[in-house]
């Protein structure tokens, strides 16, 4: 039996590199939107040695090494947790904008 899915890539993996850190991007599924953008679906995870961001849907731009999500997202670092209605990560991961209603908890 052949299973036909709409998924272009299973378990895609990318990385964002900057001078301070390397951010690994993983998901369960990926669909190419064009040459630069890929829609990452299900258990999308951004992980560096400083933080993680978990969400369900992200558009990742391979050329700019940026990503935008309008799904509920949770950022976690050593003593910080940020919940938001989405995020935009740019400048090679140095800058993150948490979109919409957002909540930060500092320990």
């Amino acid at each position, binding site marked *: 039996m052949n299973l036909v899915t709409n998924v272009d890539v299973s378990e895609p993996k990318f990385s964002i590199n900057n001078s301070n850190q390397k951010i690994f991007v993983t998901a369960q599924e990926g669909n190419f939107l064009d040459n630069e953008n890929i829609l990452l679906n299900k258990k999308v995870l951004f992980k560096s040695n*400083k933080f993680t961001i978990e969400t369900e849907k992200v558009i990742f731009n391979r050329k700019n090494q940026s990503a935008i999500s309008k799904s509920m997202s949770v950022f976690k670092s050593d003593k910080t947790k940020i919940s*938001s209605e989405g995020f935009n990560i740019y400048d090679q991961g*140095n*800058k993150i904008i948490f979109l*919409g*209603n957002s*909540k*930060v*908890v*500092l320990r």
Partner: protein
Amino acid sequence: MIKLIVTIILIIFSTSVHGRELGQTEITAEDGIEGFQDEKLYLLKKNVKIESDNFILLGDIVKIFFDKDLNDIKTIDANGNVSLESTEYKLKASGTNVFFILAEEEIIVEGMNSLLIIEDTEMYSDGKIKVNNIDGSFNLAGNNSKLKSENNFIKGKSIKGSFSSFNKEREVSSLNVFDEKLSYLKTNGTEMFANKITYNKESALFELEDNVKIKSETETITGDYGTLDTITNSYKIKSKNSKRVKVLILDANE
């Protein structure tokens, strides 16, 4: 059984209402947060609320600067209808901008109708109010600057000085008031008017310069220069032109 259900409901309700745990700082914003890792900065937009064990701050746009990591708050720069309340420091502040340096315990309130209350001392200004809790210094600058405490009322365009603590009571230990129109100071029933009024706790002396007027219950004296000794409650007035000193003695029975 009913008691158990009620207890469970109360626990669920209390944890959902009071989400913040002891030692945590909770920050909420309606229009997102920008995090700048290199600059160690969070920029928060629209109806921002910061709640910690020590204080609650509300503002429209708030920048939070961190020290080493993005969790140890160094400075808060809040703009737009800002209010700050700290029960620990018995402090209330409101203004257009509030700048709060946590480690240095320094607060700056700016804008029209700025207000800063620390314990029983109230400070008002349409310009800027700056207080450092560590060295006790204060500086009010701008129109309608006023400082009120239990025994003092001070008004001037520039009110600078320092507080000291005596028997856990906050009192003014040095003072420098200036207003090109006229400064005003009332203490223990005596009113003082001058362009410049200074006070030093060590000398226990008020010094008044230019357009001086000292008004007590029984008399009013005017001149160009005056001093008031707070220990003996006596005052002297001099004038550049000695003929200009004027004393108005009021009949106590009037």
